[in-house]
Every structure is written in C-alpha cells, then in structure tokens.
C-alpha cells in the first residue's frame, strides 16, 4: 500500500498519449494470427502501459457459474490468477462489472465491499481493481478485462476508457482471429476434401467468339484430380484450346449451352483427344454474365472399355453364331457402302465364292462369275447394289471354281435419319442343293404326270377297245344275225314258219336291246351313281354270273368314300372280274370288298387255271393296266397263282374317307 501510485492524467494530452498506445496496441495485435499470441501480447502491453501488477482477461460463463482466465500478465507482487474462477465466490461488487466498468481504488477502505470481500482480495494481494466487461446485448457478459494493483490506486477516467477500448479491441482481435482460424479450418477441410476426392472438380469460364459460338474455356481452378483424370499438367489459368488443341467442339458446345441457358447437365462423352471417357456434371456458378461453370467429372474409360469389351464379346459371339449359321445354311452376308463404295463381305461370302478371306471385292464380281444364262440377271444385281432404292432378289447361276452354283441374292437399302440410302445390306445363299431337289421333284412330278397321262390314255384306249369290242362282238353281231335271219322271211314260207321266224327275230332284237343296255351300263354305271357301291358291285356279280358263279361279299367298315374312290373300286372290281370271265376258265370266283377306315381291300379269288408264267404274276393277263391305275392311287396289287390252282388277286388302296355327304354304300 505504501507504493500506491497516483496516476494523474494530464488532461487532453494524456488521452492523446493513450490513443497512440491504442494504435500501437491494435497494430501489435493485428500482427498476430493466433489468438493466444494476441491475448498474451495484449496483456503484456496493457500491464506495461498502465504499470499494472497484474492484468488478465477472463471469459464469463454465467450458465456455468465460472470465469475462464484466458490470458494474464503481471509481476510477482500479485501471483498468477487460477485458470478457472467460480463466479459465486466473487463479491457482489465485482459482479457489477458485468453491467459496466468497475473501479476499486482501495480495497481496504471501499465500503462497497464486505469484510469477507476485503479479506479475500487481500489474500491475493488485490488492493486496487479496475474491470471492463464486453457484453453481448445489455446483460450478457462475454468476457472481462481486469487490471489489478498490489497497492491502492486511483484509477483515472482516461485509464478506464483505455481499458474499455483495449478490451474492445482485444475482443475484436481475438474474435476476428478465431473467425479467421475457423474459416481457415473450414477452408482447410474444404481444401482437403476438394483435393482428396477422386473426381475432378474444376471451375471454368466459357469463351465465345463474336458470333456467339463457344470456342474455348479458361480453367480457373481445379483439384489435383484434374491432372490425374486428364493427363494434363499445369492447367490452371490456361485455355483448353492451348492445352488440348484437338479437344472436340462437342465440349465447347455443351459447356457453352449450360453457361447460356443456366441449366445444369449430366452427360457421358468420350474426349478423343484425351483418349478417355468422362461422366460429367456441369452447372453454372456465380453471375450468369461471368459465364462460369463448375464441372465435376470422373474418368469412366475403364467402365466404358469394359462395356465395349462386353459389347465386343457379344458381337464376337454373334459373329461366331452368324458364321456358324452362314456355314450351316450356306449363307453369306454383305454390305455395300454407297458413300465410299466399300463392298464388305462376311466369311460366308468368301466361302460361297471360294475366295480367300479378305480379298478385295467389288459388286461387279457377280458379272465375273455368272454364266451366260444369268448374265442379264447379274447385271441387274450390280445395278441394284449401286443404285436401287428398294429391296431386290435375284437368282443367279454361277460358275465358281469350275463348279456350277445357284445363288439367291437378296438386298435391302438402309436409310439414314435424313432418309438417304447409305448402305445396302444383302444376303447370298447357295441354293444349288435346293434347286437340284426342286428340279428332281419337278422331274418326278413330270414323270408322275406322264404316268398319269399314259395311264389315262391307256385307260381311254382300253375303254374304247372295250366299247369297240362290245359293239363289234355284241350288238354288231346280233344285228348281223338279225339281218341274216331276215332272209327267212322268203316268199312262200308257211304261216307256221313265219310265226317261228318272227319269234326268233323278236328274240334276237330283245338280245340286241339287252346288249345295248349292258354296253351302256358298262360305259356309265348308273347303279353306282344312283344306289352306291354295294348295289353296283352286286350288279356286276349278277351280270357276270353265268358259267362262273361269283360270290360277292362287301364289308363296309367306313361309310364314307370320295366319289373318285368309289368309281376306282367299282372299275377295279369290274376289270378283275371280267378278267376272270375272259381268262381264268374258272367255275367259281369269290369277290371280297372291304371298305376299311383307311384303306379299301379288293380280293378276287378264282378256281381257274391259274397263271403259268412268272411274268403273268407280275403283269398278268389284263392286269398291267389295273396295276398302273392302282399305283396312281398309291395302292398295291398282288397276285398269287399257281398253275391249275386258281388265281388270287388282292388290291389295297389307301383312302381318307373325306366326303361330307353320306355315302350311298
């Protein structure tokens, strides 16, 4: 207390001196960028300037009832203040500092203090105290700057003003530094993130020419991934055109569009000049007129390559499949590019033309290999390939390596988006085998037709012959017999003779009428037409029964037959039975006709002389024509015969029994 100093202010000049200190104070604090350094320097400067035994600043935390001493400076007269002070231990008077500057000139006599307060202060050598508090709002103290003297001291107004100002400047300096530190931390974090991400983030500025066409961009900023992902070096602040002269116009157009429209875009595209694929998200930043874009992109070349590899693999598989198919189907495919005149062949085409794979070919190759017969067609094919605007198809006979091949050539034009024909795609197929088969079938058909024609002709001839015979041997003979017998009516004949002759002539005429009816019936079996197969067969049996007894049995298991089939069964039975009458010298003949569900069986068994020659059994007497007719119906005729033991003829004819109407069987 004895050293109590009277710090008299010399008025206006004293404040000026303090102001000079405050300028120095601020300058000093500004030099530090660390809040601890600032706090320590401030305490030191204040202690020195005001000649304090201790000066400290503490953060007030009312909610926690404590003050955290942040910085302090002083001499040994007052020991260092603990880092944390309990606010509840503070005297009421000291707490008033939270609401405004507080000065205690002499602790020992200040009656605002209690005896306890005084004793507490004395214990820590506090004899004079001045405190200024920084508040947020009116009642929220944030921290206090406290000046302490180990002896009583009369604090001047200038000193308190200086403390207040210093407290304010210190607080600002510290807060500012803290903010900057936080910002720097944040910036650091952002930078770390910015620099560590695998994707490239860059900011570019678009450059347009006078016509408004995007022509370049400036790389303003980018993370290190830019170099990793592009292979560029030292790109910041440089123009892309300078860095990569071959960079495609696509990129400038795309970024230009985003800059002008303000619409973000995500896309994938290959930068050929950089030899990579990119997945890009670009969006405008800052003011539109600045034409700046933030571009976030990553290298997807590997993925694309994999995709491409898979596509290639698929393509290869398809190609191999196509190759196999071409090989199997004797196919070849080709493409003609009308823009550059390239004629591209698949392996199958080279195989078809027996040429080494890769041999250069032109459409005129068709002319070179076509034989004389197909030359006009080959010329058409070439013209189609070169000029046609529609699908085409031709079949050419070609001479390839000394072999005749028949190729079917089909082509179709492929148009671009504008509708112009750019390509002609085509397929050639070796149809030689197919042609040969078709030719064979054609020949077989011709032969079959010839056979039908011959059979029809021979049947017709047989019919004519039979009619001729019937007329000649039947009706003709009868008429001649009548004519001869008419001579009986000579002059002078007795009445008895005349009556007898008349009766005889009448009988002959009746026979002639019957014969005429028989011939007529034979020509057209009306019974078949009117009463069906069973009646018609019965009729034949009745008519032919005489010297030979015909036993006819007709079994009908399927009551539907096509009309032609009914006629065929009728004629076959009739001819077989007539054969028996004419040639067999039999006394009985069993005729069995079975109309089955899918075939007709005709069996004619006689007890006649049988066939003596083997040849007869094959094409037995009168059987050749029956056999050929049966064969035309896909039927079969078999003969079993031994000399003197009769003949057994069996005919089987398949049928489908299709008529919709009820049969008259």
């Amino acid at each position: 207390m004895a050293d109590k100093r009277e710090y008299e202010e010399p008025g206006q000049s004293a404040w000026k001196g303090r102001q000079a200190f405050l300028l120095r104070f601020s300058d000093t604090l500004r030099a530090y960028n660390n809040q601890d350094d600032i706090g320590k320097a401030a305490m030191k400067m204040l202690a020195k300037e005001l000649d304090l035994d201790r000066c400290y600043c503490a953060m007030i935390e009312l909610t926690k009832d404590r003050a955290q001493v942040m910085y302090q400076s002083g001499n040994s007269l007052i020991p260092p203040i603990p880092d944390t002070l309990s606010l509840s231990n503070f005297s009421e008077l000291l707490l008033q500092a939270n609401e405004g500057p507080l000065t205690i000139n002499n602790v020992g006599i200040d009656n605002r203090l209690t005896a306890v307060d005084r004793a507490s202060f004395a214990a820590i050598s506090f004899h004079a105290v001045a405190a200024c508090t920084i508040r947020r709002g009116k009642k929220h103290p944030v921290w206090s700057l406290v000046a302490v003297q180990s002896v009583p001291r009369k604090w001047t107004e200038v000193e308190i003003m200086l403390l207040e100002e210093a407290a304010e400047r210190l607080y600002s300096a510290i807060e500012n530094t803290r903010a900057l530190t936080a910002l720097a931390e944040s910036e650091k974090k952002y930078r770390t993130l910015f620099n560590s991400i695998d994707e490239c983030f860059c900011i570019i500025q678009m450059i347009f020419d006078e016509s408004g066409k995007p022509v370049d961009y400036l790389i303003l900023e980018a993370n290190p991934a830019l170099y990793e992902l592009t292979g560029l070096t030292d790109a910041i602040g440089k123009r892309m055109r300078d860095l990569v002269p071959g960079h495609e116009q696509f990129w400038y157009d795309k970024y230009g569009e985003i800059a002008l429209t303000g619409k973000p875009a995500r896309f994938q595209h290959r930068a050929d000049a950089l030899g990579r694929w990119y997945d890009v998200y670009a969006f405008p930043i800052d003011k539109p007129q600045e034409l700046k874009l933030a571009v976030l992109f990553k290298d997807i070349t590997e993925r694309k390559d994999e995709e491409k590899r898979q596509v290639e693999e698929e393509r290869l598989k398809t190609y191999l499949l196509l190759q196999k198919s071409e090989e199997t189907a004797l196919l070849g495919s080709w493409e003609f590019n009308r823009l550059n005149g390239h004629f591209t062949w698949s392996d199958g085409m080279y195989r078809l033309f027996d040429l080494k794979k890769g041999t250069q070919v032109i459409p005129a190759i068709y002319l070179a290999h076509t034989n004389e017969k197909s030359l006009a067609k080959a010329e058409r094919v070439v013209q189609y390939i070169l000029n046609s605007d529609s699908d085409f198809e031709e079949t050419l006979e070609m001479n390839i390596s000394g072999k005749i091949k028949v190729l079917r050539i089909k082509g179709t034009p492929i148009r671009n988006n504008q509708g112009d024909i750019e390509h002609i795609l085509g397929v050639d197929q070796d149809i030689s085998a197919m042609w040969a088969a078709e030719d064979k079938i054609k020949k077989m058909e011709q032969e079959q037709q010839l056979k039908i024609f011959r059979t029809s002709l021979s049947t017709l001839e047989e019919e004519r012959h039979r009619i001729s015979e019937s007329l000649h041997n039947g009706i003709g003979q009868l008429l001649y017999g009548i004519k001869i017998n008419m001579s009986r009516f000579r002059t002078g004949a007795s009445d008895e003779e005349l009556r007898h002759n008349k009766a005889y002539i009448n009988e002959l005429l009746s026979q002639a009428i019957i014969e005429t009816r028989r011939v007529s019936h034979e020509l057209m079996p009306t019974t078949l037409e009117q009463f069906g197969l069973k009646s018609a067969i019965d009729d034949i049996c009745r008519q032919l029964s005489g010297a030979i007894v015909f036993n006819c049995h007709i079994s009908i298991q399927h009551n539907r037959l096509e009309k032609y089939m009914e006629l065929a069964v009728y004629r076959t039975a009739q001819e077989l039975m007539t054969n028996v009458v004419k040639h067999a010298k039999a006394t009985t003949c069993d005729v069995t006709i079975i109309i089955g569900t899918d075939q007709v069986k005709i069996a004619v068994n006689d007890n006649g002389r049988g066939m003596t020659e083997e040849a007869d059994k094959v094409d037995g007497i009168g059987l050749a024509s029956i056999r050929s007719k049966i064969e035309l119906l896909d039927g079969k005729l078999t003969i079993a015969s031994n000399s003197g033991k009769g003949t057994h003829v069996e005919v089987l004819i398949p049928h489908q029994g299709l008529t919709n109407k009820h049969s008259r069987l």
Partner: protein
Amino acid sequence: MIRLMLAEDNDIVREGLSQMLAAQVGITIAAEAENGDSALEKLQAGIAVDVMLVDWNMPGISGVELTRRIKRLMPHIKVIILTMHSKDEYRVQAFNAGASAYVLKDLEVEDLAKIIREVYTIG
C-alpha cells in the same frame, strides 16, 4: 357242190349263216366251228372243205391267224374273211395271210353265196 366250213364264235350268226347258206344253190355246209382251234381240229381230222368262211374276231386263234395256218397246211382251201371291220388295213392283213376274199358283215346271204361261188371258181 361247194363244201363250206363256217368258223364263227357268235352262235346266232353262225347258226343263221349255216341255215341260210345251206339253202343256197351249190353250197353245202361241211362243218361249223365256234373258234379257230376247233376249225383246225376238224380240218386236221380230215373233213373235206373247199371254202372256209372265217370270222375275223374269235377267241383264241384269230381269223387272220387261222387263215395263215390253213393256207400253210392246206393251201387248196379258199378262205373268205368275214368281218365287221371295214378299214383297208384289216383287208390288207387278210390278203397277206392268204385270204381270197374280205367280206363285211352286212351282205345279204345271196350276195355272200355269190362271193363263195366266185372264190371257189376263180380262186
């Protein structure tokens, strides 16, 4: 008398001719045959015949064949072919086989008798 054999398979015609020609002057029916085989058998059996009236169409040996065989075996026998066929080709065949006449089956019995007589006389 001209000894005539009839070879005709049609009973009515054969019987009618037999009766009618038998009534003609200078003709006697030496034999009748219903087919060629029967005719040859009868000739070979020794029946004396001057003229044969042979039907063209018969079962077994045809009229032309029968003519050929008769002319080979017994060339003195004159053969007249009796037929319904009017075509020249038949006629040529008949003459080539050795027939003396070719007569259609539409002649009156009297005319037929006249031809038989001519054939027998002239040959």
